């Protein structure tokens, strides 16, 4: 049993490496970037990769390497805010929906179903219209729109936990409902939340790219991969590399978080655990 557990899950490993890469880029960017990422230089516009500008420069003559590094921060910020909002609101609501008895639980799940019908990007666009387009509002909107997904998943997990004999045993041992929620339900649904978190991280990164494309995302000149991709569009035919770098960065991040989530899911899959 333990031998099979110790073998490293390949998608967890690959995901971990990719996510680690993004995190590393972001961390290093706080200390050092090859050039000032915002410095416009009309003398060095649209250069190809060379010794000084490793990945070349954009149409403002800014160093793409530096901007990609700082962009990693935006990407992580985006994910953390979106996932944070969703998990912080969704987890307790999900536990509540799973533990509430009678009509209250039913009402909560109906409300969740309804909320599912309001897609994330829609909410983000409307938020952008109300509060102004910024990364923060966009991601809070994406986070809010993801809450129902968490409620559903956590609720299902809670229902499963609540039907176990160990919860019955805890009740027989005299635990109050709050105690059961904190000591039994929360630790046991935490795995689900983490898995869902890494998946919605990936979704948030994609959503930010989509929003930047529509002009509701990160405001310039703050580098964001989605925005860089959008800016590269008009030069797609003349300077295709400009689209390749941010495109690849987005793919790596999304791929990383997806693989990481898949790996975690395999880890936490009770079917696999039981063997």
């Amino acid at each position: 049993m333990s031998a099979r557990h110790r073998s490293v899950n390949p998608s967890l490993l690959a995901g971990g490496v990719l996510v680690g890469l993004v995190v590393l880029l972001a961390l290093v960017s706080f200390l050092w970037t090859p050039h000032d990422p915002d410095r416009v230089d009309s003398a060095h516009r649209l250069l190809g990769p060379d010794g000084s500008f490793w990945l070349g420069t954009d149409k403002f003559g800014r160093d793409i390497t530096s901007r990609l590094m700082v962009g990693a921060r935006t990407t992580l910020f985006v994910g953390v805010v979106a996932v944070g909002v969703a998990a912080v609101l969704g987890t307790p609501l999900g536990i509540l929906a799973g533990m509430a008895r009678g009509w209250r639980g039913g009402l909560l799940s109906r409300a969740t179903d309804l909320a599912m019908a309001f897609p994330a990007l829609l909410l983000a666009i409307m938020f952008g219209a109300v509060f102004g387009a910024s990364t923060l509002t966009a991601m809070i909107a994406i986070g809010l729109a993801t809450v129902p997904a968490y409620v559903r998943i956590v609720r299902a997990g809670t229902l499963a936990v609540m039907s176990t004999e160990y919860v019955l045993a805890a009740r027989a041992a005299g635990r109050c409902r709050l105690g059961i929620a904190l000591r039994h339900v929360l630790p046991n649904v935490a795995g689900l939340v983490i898995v869902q978190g890494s998946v919605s991280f990936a979704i948030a990164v994609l959503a930010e790219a989509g929003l930047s494309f529509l002009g509701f995302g990160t405001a310039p000149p703050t580098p964001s991969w989605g925005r860089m991709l959008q800016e590269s569009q008009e030069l797609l035919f003349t300077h295709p590399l400009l689209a390749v770098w941010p495109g690849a960065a987005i793919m790596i991040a999304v791929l990383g978080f997806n693989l990481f989530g898949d790996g975690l899911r395999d880890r936490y899959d009770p079917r696999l655990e039981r063997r």
Partner: protein
Amino acid sequence: GSGTTGETAGSDTSLDVGFIAEPASLDFTRNDGAAIPQALLVNVYEGLVKLDAEGRIVPLLAKSWQVSPDRRTYTFTLRDGVTFSDGKPFTAQDAAFSIDRVKTSWTTSLKTGMDVVARAEPVSATTLKVTLKRPSNSWLFAMTTRIGAMFSRTGVADLATKPIGTGPFVVEKWTRGDSMVLTARDGYWGKAPAVQRITLRYFKDPTAMNNAMRTGGIDVISTVQAPESLPEFSDTSKYHVIEGTSNGEVVLSYNNSKPPLTDRRVRQALSYAIDRKAVLDTAWAGHGTLIGSMVPPTDPWYEDLSQTYPYDPAKARQLLAQAGHPTLTLRLRIPNLPYAVASAQVVKSQLAQVGVTARIDVLEFPARWLDEVYTKADYDMSIISHVEPRDITSWGNPDYYWRYDNPRVQQLLAQADSGTAQQQVDRMKQVARTLAEDAAADWLFLLPNLMVADPGVRGLPTNVVSEAFDLTAVSVARS
């Protein structure tokens, strides 16, 4: 687009033109927005007069006009045999009705252009007499804009969807969100257009428009919104790139009522700190003109003022220090339009060199920008292109969003309006110079009129000098 392939020039030709901004409605009497007159003026609606390609006022529905010595009475002689697209004849009654209607029924603030009119009376079927309260040069000019458009007395019931004008085209079909089809109509008084059917296609996305051009989806890009992509159209056997000037001054506006921007030295310092050539090169791929004041070269009072504040960061720092602001943080609140977003990033980077931190805040255009910057003047700096013809007059309005209150400018503008043609040119030049010296704003550059067209398309307007996109002279030649 595809419809033109293989067809010869003749009455059966069609043309697809790509535009960015789509009209929200077809009624410019109640709706603002440049896209409506762009599509309809001259093409569907005609005025008594219009601007030619050089910016001169020339006859249209009026064959000629006389101005009284006191320059308060205009007597127009109208053309014979002009009909509206619903078949009704156009008479002096209609002209008087149209002028009166601006004052009574229009809801946009442009209607103030007609305030100066005391009376408009039909003298005969083809003679119209307009009496002004005071002499005004800008009134006749305003008659070339949308407020001079002539409506049928019986055809104003459903302007939002069914425009009825005297122009060579009628709106055949309008598919919202996609396209508007203009077709040449029978019974037009003037020379019938060479192209029977013109489809105005609306693209939200410049790249999509470029792709449509490259795949034959359209024949003309009316304005290139991504000048960086022009090299895609360098094959002269397939594309014809037209580059002229427009009315669009891209202005880095200052809130003149807000300290420290009330201090002229600070404004001048900002102007010294900005390398406008670099802005033009990076933000708009070098296409456009450096101006230096609020006057495009097509206006009669144009002077090259672009060297008023040559790029000089040292001087900028020095002026800032003198003004007591060696470092400064300003809010640069811009609309989410391509040229503004691009220019702002360059400006921010350049200002950073002299110790000025510009915090960019991108506002959705039009709703939020109009509300916060334009209406409430809640900003320090902004960037927007002013596209109305002869919009230098707005500097005479102290409540305008740049909050520039200079009695001398106001006086000069008033004199220019009521004076003779020569006086007008003279005073206007002074206004432009005053504004430049005062660094009331920074004129980053003048947007070019950049078009890409199929080589067979002729007669496209090289310069944009009016509100209209004049399609009446366009023809298509195919081998």
